[in-house]
């Protein structure tokens, strides 16, 4: 298990400032899915009762449908668990030194990446859609000069506030350790633009 008091490779004096998960609406979606899937067999049962169908008293179909319903319930239970696990294991931790991004993709794939705050070049917050605007949740993108995918905090609560906090932490970190984003940018520029060819 991961402890906020003992993060992997934690430096002396490093403290956790933000601990973020996706907005609760994502988790509510998983529960709504379960609720909807639970209503289906109940609706079928009511339809059988109302239609006076005798299929459940058939020597083969009664037991077969019972087993099918049992399998259905088990599968819905594990799908719900997988969705909760996916929600529960998507974590973003912001300390005064770095950003740690832990993402669970399904049950068998997991990505853990980290970024030092003095490498950050740009932070963008994004709120989109009616629900996002009304409930104030959205995305935060953190861009470095390095040639890698930008960090994305997906569907987090109050992305604008998170952006401001991270921007403040980035400024403080750059004061302490220097601006590593400029060095990275210079390195990339050196790699991308070849020197002028010499003419004979």
């Amino acid at each position: 298990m991961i402890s906020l008091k003992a993060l992997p490779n934690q430096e002396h004096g490093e403290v956790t400032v933000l601990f973020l998960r996706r907005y609760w609406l994502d988790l509510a979606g998983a529960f709504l899915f379960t609720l909807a899937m639970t209503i289906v067999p109940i609706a079928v049962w009511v339809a059988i009762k109302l239609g006076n169908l005798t299929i459940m008293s058939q020597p083969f179909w009664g037991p077969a449908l019972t087993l099918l319903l049992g399998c259905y319930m088990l599968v819905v239970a594990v799908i719900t668990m997988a969705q909760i696990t996916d929600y529960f294991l998507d974590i973003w931790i912001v300390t005064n030194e770095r950003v740690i991004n832990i993402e669970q993709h399904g049950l068998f794939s997991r990505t853990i990446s980290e970024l030092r705050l003095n490498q950050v070049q740009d932070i963008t917050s994004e709120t989109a859609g009616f629900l996002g605007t009304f409930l104030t949740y959205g995305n935060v993108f953190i861009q470095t000069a390095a040639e890698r995918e930008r960090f994305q905090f997906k569907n987090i609560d109050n992305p604008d506030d998170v952006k401001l906090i991270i921007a403040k932490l980035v400024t403080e970190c750059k004061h302490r350790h220097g601006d590593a984003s400029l060095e990275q940018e210079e390195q990339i520029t050196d790699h991308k633009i070849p020197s002028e060819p010499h003419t004979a």
Partner: protein
Amino acid sequence: MTAFHFPLWYLLIPFAAILLATTIYMFFNIYHIAKFGMQSFGTTVVLLLYFGGYLAVLCVVGIMVSSIDWQHTVTIIEILPFAGNSTSTFGL
């Protein structure tokens, strides 16, 4: 001409396979939460919910399945829905 008979418990074989698969999947979920989750009260609650929820579903399924006489044999003709056989395996 003799009709092909088979006992109902044959149906339990694919059911047992699905039960095994979902149980293994459930344990994978628990393993992931226990290994990669945060050390917090919330994680404990989620783990208890997983165990409790899955056990509850298992109990309901167990009650449903145990109410059937699995030794009963059926013929192919009885598989056809509404074939008119009045014998109920639920003892109804």
